[in-house]
C-alpha cells in the first residue's frame, strides 16, 4: 500500500467519493464488496469515467491492487490497443445507450487478456442527475474453456459414430453374406454409407446447419456428380441451410433416388440419361419453405414399380412424417420426377 502522502490527488478524490458513497449506501456497499460478481463504479462527471470503487472479485479477476485501479480511466482496463468496435460500444453505453450488455476483452495487470460479459448501468442521484455508472463483469474464461471442451467431445463423438457405423456395416455384411444375395448387401451398405456421409457433414458443421448443396454433393458424388467426362447432373438452387434432421432425411432420400436411377432410371444406361435437380426458397407468412424438383430424362422408358420398396416408402413417408413436407413421386415414362415441398426454419440474421 502506498503511504498517505504518495497518493495522487485523483486517488484521494476517488477515495473521498467512495467514502460518501459508503455513507449513503451503507449495507449495499458491503454487499458489493463481498459479492462474487466482479463490479466497479465509475464517476460519470469525468469524461474518462474513472473508477471510484472496485470490489474484491473484480480485483482478483483483473489482477490489480485496489490502489492501482482507483482513479484510473475505464479505458485503462481494456485490451490495448482496444478494439475500436468495443470502444464504441462502451462509449455508447456510458452515454446512455440501451445496448448496455456485451462481451468485451479486458487486460489483466500481467498483460493477459480475458473475456467478460459486461453490463453498464447509470446511477442517478436524488435530483435525477447522472452521477455514476455501475459496471459488472461476468468472467467468460470458464465458459470459453467449457465451449472448447464441448467442441472436443462433440468431435470425439462424431468419430466414434463413424467407427460404429463401420462396425455396423461389417457386422451386417458378415451376417448377410451367406443368407442374402449381393444386391441386398450392397443396398444395405449403400444406405449405411449415405447415413455416414450425412453424419460426417453435420459433424464438420458442429451439428448446426448445413447447406442443401453440400448434402447433395456428398450423396451424389459416388454416382458420378464430379465426373467431368460425362455430365449427368445439373444442380441449381438458392443457398438454403438445413437443420440436422432435415439434412439426414434428405440425404437418405437423395441416396434412394440416385440408387433407383442407377438401377432403372437415368443413370442406368450409357451416358444418355441426365438428372436435373433444382430448387427455390419461398418465403411464406409463417416460415420459409423450399420447393425442389428431381427430374430424370434420357433413361429407359420408366415403368412404375410393382410394390413399394424401402426407397419410395422413405421418400413418401419419411419426408412427410419427419419433416412435415409434401412429396410427389411420379413414374413418368420419360423419367422419374420427384417434387418436394418442405418447410425450413428461417435463418435469423442472414
Amino acid at each position, binding site marked *: 500500500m502506498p503511504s498517505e502522502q504518495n497518493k495522487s490527488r485523483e486517488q484521494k478524490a476517488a477515495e473521498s467519493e467512495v467514502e460518501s458513497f459508503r455513507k449513503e449506501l451503507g449495507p449495499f456497499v458491503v454487499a458489493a464488496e463481498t459479492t462474487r460478481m466482479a463490479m466497479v463504479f465509475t464517476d460519470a462527471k469525468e469524461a474518462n469515467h474513472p473508477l471510484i470503487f472496485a470490489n474484491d472479485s473484480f480485483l482478483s479477476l483483473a489482477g490489480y491492487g485496489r490502489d492501482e485501479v482507483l482513479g484510473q480511466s475505464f479505458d485503462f482496463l481494456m485490451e490495448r490497443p482496444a478494439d475500436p468496435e468495443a470502444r464504441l460500444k462502451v462509449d455508447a453505453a456510458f452515454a446512455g445507450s440501451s445496448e448496455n450488455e456485451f462481451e468485451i476483452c479486458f487486460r489483466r495487470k500481467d498483460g493477459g487478456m480475458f473475456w467478460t460479459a459486461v453490463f453498464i448501468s447509470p446511477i442517478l442521484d436524488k435530483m435525477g442527475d447522472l452521477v455514476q455508472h455501475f459496471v459488472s463483469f461476468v468472467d467468460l474464461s470458464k465458459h470459453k474453456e467449457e465451449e472448447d471442451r464441448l467442441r472436443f467431445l462433440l468431435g470425439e463423438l462424431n468419430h466414434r459414430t*463413424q*467407427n460404429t457405423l463401420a462396425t455396423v*456395416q*461389417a*457386422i451386417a*455384411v*458378415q451376417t448377410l453374406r451367406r443368407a442374402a444375395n449381393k444386391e441386398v448387401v450392397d443396398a444395405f*451398405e449403400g444406405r449405411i454409407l449415405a447415413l*455416414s456421409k450425412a453424419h460426417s457433414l453435420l459433424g464438420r458443421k458442429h451439428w448446426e446447419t448445413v447447406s442443401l448443396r453440400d448434402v447433395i454433393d456428398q450423396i451424389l458424388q*459416388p454416382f458420378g456428380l464430379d465426373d467431368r467426362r460425362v455430365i449427368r447432373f445439373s444442380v441449381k438452387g438458392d443457398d438454403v441451410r438445413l437443420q440436422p434432421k432435415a439434412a439426414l432425411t434428405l440425404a437418405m432420400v437423395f441416396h434412394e433416388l440416385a440408387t433407383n436411377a442407377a438401377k432403372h432410371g437415368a443413370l442406368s444406361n450409357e451416358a444418355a440419361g441426365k438428372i436435373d435437380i433444382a430448387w427455390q426458397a419461398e418465403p411464406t407468412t409463417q416460415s420459409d419453405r423450399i420447393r425442389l424438383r428431381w427430374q430424370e430424362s434420357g433413361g429407359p422408358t420408366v415403368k412404375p414399380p410393382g410394390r413399394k420398396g424401402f426407397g419410395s416408402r422413405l421418400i413418401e413417408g419419411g419426408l412427410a412424417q419427419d419433416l412435415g413436407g409434401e412429396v410427389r413421386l411420379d413414374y413418368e415414362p420419360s423419367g422419374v420426377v420427384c417434387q418436394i415441398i418442405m418447410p425450413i426454419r428461417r435463418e435469423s440474421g442472414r
Partner: protein
Amino acid sequence: MNSPFSDRRILLVEDEIFVVWLLEDMLADLGCAVVGPASSVNQALAMIDAEAIDAAVLDVNLNNEPITPVVEVLTRRGVPFVFASGYGRRGVPEAYRQNPTLQKPFQAEALAQAIDAAFAKAAAG
C-alpha cells in the same frame, strides 16, 4: 475378381474384429493376399520385418495407440499404404495427410481406388 493388384500382398492393421473380417473379404475379392491382421503397433512392426508385403491398409488408432511408428517404417522402406479412419483425414498424422485416406465406413470400390492411388503415388516417387 481380377484387379490391377491381383496377388499383391497387403498387410492389414486394424483392431476391430468385425472390420478386420470385412476388410479381409474386400481385399480377397480384389484378388489380394492378406498379411496379418495385426491389431497392435508391435505386431505390425514384427510382420513388416518377417513378411514380404507390397502395401498396407492401416487403421490410424489401435486401441489408443497411434499408428505413426508403423507409418515411419513403411515410408522408409518405400511400401505404399492407405489409411482407414473414422476420423477421416483429420485423424491422420499431420505429416501424412497427403496420403490416400479412407473415411470409415467405406465400400470395396473406395478401398480399391485408395490402394490404386497409393501404388500410383509410390510409383511416382
